[in-house]
């Protein structure tokens, strides 16, 4: 892609974000998105200087997205595993400083903020150290390994007067924003259920290179460092659920198991949960690692239609049919004998609708870049993107509460002691 092509597609992307977030309803529902889309470009020498802690796969993807922004630059990178650090170096200018210890990077100065892409159990300490160094923090989801640590990060950000932004790229994706707008406008009626799934056909286990340990590379599989599917995948989709329901869950129940990949991992390879929301609404969530048929999707189910944002489709409910065989039962019960038509559209009920639906629109481009432009703007102005941190905080809390519910086989209520955002 040429620079001109990129500028054009970028402009189109931003226009779509702005279109999707226009209107009073959306300003309240997703205020962060338009704020990010309106970020002012900055001269190269004035850009927000970021130090990236963690240059594994995710960290390197973030570096590449930061390079696309018009207001941020990677000023330093850090990783305690030489192979990852070397791969990170390959993505940045030769003049970019590289460190094997994040404290040394913080001590060296020359940064406005850090980007944390380390294993989950390091997020709290890394963010605390950055706040103590007077820096703003952008941190990968999920926030932290425990609910208390999530709250502590929020509190530390507030006490230090520094920004904390958590990576949830769907909150900047035009398809999702447009879906929320259409839902807010009532196109699919009252949303009472969301079915969300992230199903993969993969062990999730990565080969361990020389010089590294299994726990260093496969930290997602061990409980000290991760809640597995809940913190790495579910947190994204629970956030989507909260966004469409415009609420946080009231309670959660679930079942988790290691039922396929019995390879020494400690985290569940199969989870199924129900998150209840006020009014009896439900988010039904499953994630597993041995069947990819249904992939990654959220099915937003309303009384007038269904939205499937990953597929980018919206489906309208068909008018209820008078079903022939069902009607026969009712007729008999009421003492009424009438001819039953065989076959045709009313013969059988309750089969899945296989119509293709309509396009929701606007699916391309990489929204991760916009997250960083929004973060750069927040750092520049000293004002956080509105509403964003609470969305991320509640999504992380919900994912960890789900883990607790599965571990304890109990129905757990939403915590009452969360830090006010």
């Amino acid at each position, binding site marked *: 892609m040429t620079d001109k092509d990129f500028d054009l597609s970028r402009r189109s992307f931003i226009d779509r974000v702005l279109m999707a977030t226009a209107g009073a309803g959306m300003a309240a529902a997703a205020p962060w998105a338009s704020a990010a889309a309106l970020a002012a470009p900055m001269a190269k020498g004035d850009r927000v200087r970021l130090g990236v802690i963690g240059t594994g796969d995710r960290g390197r993807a973030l570096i590449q997205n930061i390079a696309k922004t018009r207001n941020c630059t990677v000023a330093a990178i850090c990783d305690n595993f030489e192979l990852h650090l070397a791969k990170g170096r390959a993505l940045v200018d030769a003049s970019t400083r590289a460190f094997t210890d994040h404290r040394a990077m913080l001590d060296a100065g020359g940064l406005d903020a850090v980007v944390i892409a380390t294993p989950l159990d390091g997020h709290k300490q890394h963010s605390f150290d950055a706040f103590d160094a007077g820096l703003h923090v952008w941190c990968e989801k999920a926030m932290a390994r425990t609910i208390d640590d999530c709250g502590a990060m929020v509190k530390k950000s507030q006490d230090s007067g520094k920004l904390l932004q958590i990576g949830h790229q769907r909150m900047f994706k035009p398809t999702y924003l447009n879906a929320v707008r259409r839902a807010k406008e009532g196109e699919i009626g009252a949303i009472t259920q969301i079915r969300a799934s992230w199903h993969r056909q993969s062990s999730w286990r990565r080969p361990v290179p020389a010089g590294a340990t299994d726990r260093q590379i496969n930290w997602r599989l061990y409980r000290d460092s991760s809640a597995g599917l809940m913190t790495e995948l579910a947190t994204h989709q629970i956030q989507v659920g909260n966004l469409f329901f415009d609420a946080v869950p009231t309670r959660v129940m679930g079942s988790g198991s290691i039922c396929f990949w019995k390879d020494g991992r400690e985290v569940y390879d199969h989870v199924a949960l129900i998150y209840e929301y006020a009014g009896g609404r439900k988010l039904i969530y499953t994630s597993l690692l041995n069947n990819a048929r249904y992939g990654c999707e959220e099915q937003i189910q309303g009384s007038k239609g269904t939205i499937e944002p990953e597929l980018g489709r919206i489906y309208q409910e068909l008018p209820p049919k008078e079903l022939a*065989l069902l009607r*026969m*039962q009712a007729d*008999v*019960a009421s*003492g*009424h*004998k*009438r*001819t*039953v*038509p*065989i*076959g*045709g*559209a009313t*013969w*059988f009920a*309750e*089969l899945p609708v296989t119509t293709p639906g309509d396009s929701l629109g606007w699916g391309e481009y990489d929204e991760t870049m916009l997250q960083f432009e929004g973060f750069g703007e927040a750092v520049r102005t000293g004002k956080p993107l509105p509403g964003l941190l609470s969305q991320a905080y509640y999504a992380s809390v919900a994912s960890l509460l789900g883990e607790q519910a599965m571990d304890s086989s109990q129905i757990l209520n939403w915590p009452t002691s969360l830090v006010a955002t």
Partner: protein
Amino acid sequence: MADVVRFASMGTRVELHRFGAGEDDALTAAQHAIEAVDDALTIHRPSATTALNERLMAGKGAAIDDALLFDALVKIEELHASTLGLFDPAADRRFASAGWSAIAFDRGAARVEVSQPVALDFGGLGKGFALDRACAVLREKGVVSACLSAGESSIAVVGEHPLGGGWPFAIPSPLRPDEILVEIELTDESVSISSTVGAGTAAPERAAMIRPADATIVSVPRCSVAIDRLGAHAEAMSTALLVADEDRAERLLNGDRTRRFRFDFPCGAAIPD
């Protein structure tokens, strides 16, 4: 009392509606009877029939150990004869000369021999055959009034309508669902509908209707309806009526014009928008 079970079997959706008397587990037992037929006669997963077909396609004979498969073969032999050879589950587009006539079924020895490679497809018989067994189970369980449906084209009823008299059904035109081809009443009977046109006939899993004599596809827009005491007989007759030439169709229709129907539609007729 009225209750219902719904499940997928025989490659379609099955509904069993029971009214009034009968043992509590009657519908469950009937469901098991249908599933057992599916397990024995399916050609879409390992079964007694797929094992038999492997032998027959290799031109080899085989012993018939499975009781359900044996009963189905007995039924086929009977129905092949009673439909003037027009019902033929061994007819095969790949081999024009293949057919039931290439099969020698020795009931006494429970053995099949073939004169050339053939394969059996019970799709045209299976649903009626399965409904027959389910009806028998329901009667054994004391059920006196029930309606059984396998897909949109196979219905069986046990006894009379719960409000008395026959069960009234209307068969719409496959091309214009608002138009009724015929209204019928069933009592302890089955009806089978076959069609070369209409919703569902273009589904990928649907095989075309072929003439046993030369294995050519029946392309004329046509629908046939057959009613019989037994579902397997109704299935075979509706298939035979669909593939029959004019002369043999008349002979079959003359057997019972109140229970057998054939409707030809104008050529070029298609599924309406």
